[in-house]
């Protein structure tokens, strides 16, 4: 593309444009996909990376924060890793390329690269709106991923683990998943750096729960201390569908995880739980929007943040209730444990309610360690640093325990404990 924009591009913007020119010849896709990619990158060149003047990016000025973008590095070595939970079916993406032999019991699994090649993915590459930088960059660059189809009535005995690993360069993946009527499944979407080299990762999951489906979806982001991770999950809930979505951030230098939910089926229920473990110089943004479009639906959102060092956290949560969506019950809370004077957190709750018979609320708290609890633990001989770690752990473990799935709870508590061990 040789578009004249008249704007000065930042180093990162220039690097992204150069990466596109370098990669486009090798990215999979038919004519329609290629055309869609060209539109996306041209829109990106026009708009650039968002700054704080863009409302949706006010607390994450990507243009200022994203200083550099590594080039594609097809030779970067990374390996798949053991699943989080024993017995899980792993669908592995290494350095941006999906495993050709990947399969999961009871699930139809195909590679997203194939959907790009045959053009069926083209329509989905469109960005959500003009501020959708993640959708735009991912759509332009996406190379692979998996398409999951869980048949109606299926009850998966073992969790499916979507696993992306990389150690340098760029990874752009997409994971569309359709859960058939009354199916039951647990999916772990896990993004892990296997080394210390800086990587640039975008990923978009697009999931649809058909009527009566019950799904637990866990996003576990554990990138390296130099990595940029831009994630997005788009969700549509059918009638009586139940989704438990856990978003756990425990890594990365610059992280934005967007969650966009359309509640379009009556009787559906969304449970969102977020755990953000932030240390060092990390900037971590969780942005959530939910649109309750029909009557009689519920959603609860609980976000727990633990912030050390000079890390900065952001939570933006928007609940929209359409005029017809009577009897909506939506509650959002965001609790932050600030553990250093230089730690920082911004919470922006937004309620847009156009129906009159609803229960909606939000609350945000910032707290320190409870001194009475600390004293009690110490009075039993537990040294102060260990007692503090126990209380920090308790603050987030409470959320994990709600899962009531012992192997999963144990595995996630292990991830949290290991993170705290390293950072506290």
């Amino acid at each position, binding site marked *: 593309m040789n578009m004249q924009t008249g704007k000065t591009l930042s180093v990162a913007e220039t690097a992204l444009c150069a990466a596109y020119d370098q990669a486009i010849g090798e990215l999979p896709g038919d004519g329609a996909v290629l055309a869609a990619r060209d539109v996306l990158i041209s829109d990106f060149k026009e708009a650039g990376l968002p700054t704080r003047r863009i409302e949706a990016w006010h607390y994450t000025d990507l243009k200022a924060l994203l200083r550099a973008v590594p080039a594609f590095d097809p030779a970067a070595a990374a390996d798949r890793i053991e699943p989080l939970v024993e017995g899980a079916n792993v669908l592995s993406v290494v350095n941006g390329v999906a495993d050709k032999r990947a399969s999961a019991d009871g699930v139809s699994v195909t590679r997203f690269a194939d959907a790009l090649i045959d053009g069926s993915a083209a329509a989905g590459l469109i960005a959500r709106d003009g501020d959708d930088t993640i959708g735009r960059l991912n759509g332009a660059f996406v190379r692979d991923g998996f398409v999951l189809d869980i048949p109606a009535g299926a009850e998966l005995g073992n969790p499916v683990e979507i696993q992306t690993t990389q150690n340098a360069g760029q990874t752009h993946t997409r994971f569309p998943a359709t859960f058939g009527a009354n199916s039951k499944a647990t999916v772990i979407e896990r993004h892990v750096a296997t080394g210390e080299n800086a990587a640039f990762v975008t990923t978009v999951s697009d999931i649809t729960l058909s009527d009566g489906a019950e799904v637990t979806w866990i996003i576990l982001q554990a990138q390296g201390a130099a990595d940029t991770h831009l994630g997005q999950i788009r969700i549509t809930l059918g009638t009586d569908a139940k989704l438990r979505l856990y978003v756990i951030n425990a890594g990365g230098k610059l992280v934005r995880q967007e969650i966009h939910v359309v509640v379009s089926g009556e009787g559906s229920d969304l449970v969102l739980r977020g755990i953000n473990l932030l240390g060092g110089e990390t900037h971590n943004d969780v942005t959530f929007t939910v649109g309750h479009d029909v009557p009689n639906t519920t959603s609860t959102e609980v976000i727990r943040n633990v912030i050390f060092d000079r890390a900065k956290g952001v939570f933006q949560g928007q609940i929209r209730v359409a005029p017809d969506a009577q009897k909506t019950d939506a509650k959002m809370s965001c609790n932050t444990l600030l553990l250093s004077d230089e730690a920082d957190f911004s919470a922006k709750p937004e309620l847009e309610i156009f129906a009159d018979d609803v229960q909606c609320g939000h609350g945000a708290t910032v707290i320190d360690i409870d001194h009475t609890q600390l004293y009690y*633990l110490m009075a039993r001989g*537990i*040294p*102060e640093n260990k007692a503090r770690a*126990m209380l920090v752990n308790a603050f987030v473990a409470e959320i994990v325990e709600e899962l009531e799935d012992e192997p999963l709870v144990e595995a996630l508590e292990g991830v949290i404990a290991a993170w705290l061990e390293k950072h506290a």
Partner: protein
Amino acid sequence: MLEIKNLHARIAEDGTEIIRGLNLTVKAGEVAAIMGPNGSGKSTLSYILSGREDYEVTEGDILYNGESILELDPAERASKGIFLAFQYPVEIPGVATMQFLKVAMNEQRKARGEDELTTPDFMRRVKEAAAELKIAPEMLRRPLNVGFSGGEKKRAEILQMSLLEPKLCVLDETDSGLDIDALKIVADGVNALRSPDRAVIVITHYQRLLDYIVPDTVHVLYKGQVIKSGDKTLAHELEANGYADIIGAAA
């Protein structure tokens, strides 16, 4: 074992003086009861012994086995064998009771240079001690003190005490909120720990608990001082006549 000398202490936040020249000696093997009206400084004394930061010692000293403990934090005091059974045990959601017990026992062992307990050994000890105190296994599966009734919390305190095997036990109104059956169970738990190398301080409003944990000495605390000491008959006197006579005589 414990020597409190001319202790003065105040609330750190607002400087209110609570303990005003308190003297008390408790020997190994002794059970000492501390009684006194509301506001006399009984609970404050227990917090100061355990090292709670909210109180400041401004004068005097506390010697434990001959050494001052004023500079030690609560964890260091605990690992030296000082245990406070709380009047109001603290609820800690997200910390499993069993995990808490294991960490506390092992941290104290580590501080004393002993090996950590193996899991089977730990489980056996907890199971035995819990059975003695009629504590149901379900209770131990809950987060620490969360959803425990008043009586369950007090029994959990005594469970911790028997597992941690302290040398100086301070019981702060352990009888409050207990029915007579629970009181007997708790008292049996405390009596089981009585030994020649261990001292117990029982802080209470009422004679009732002292019928089951019979003290060697009784001390009356008033306005932050011990104003009268005696043997167990002093507690009976207080029960019959109230504090007015003693307070009047001391004034």
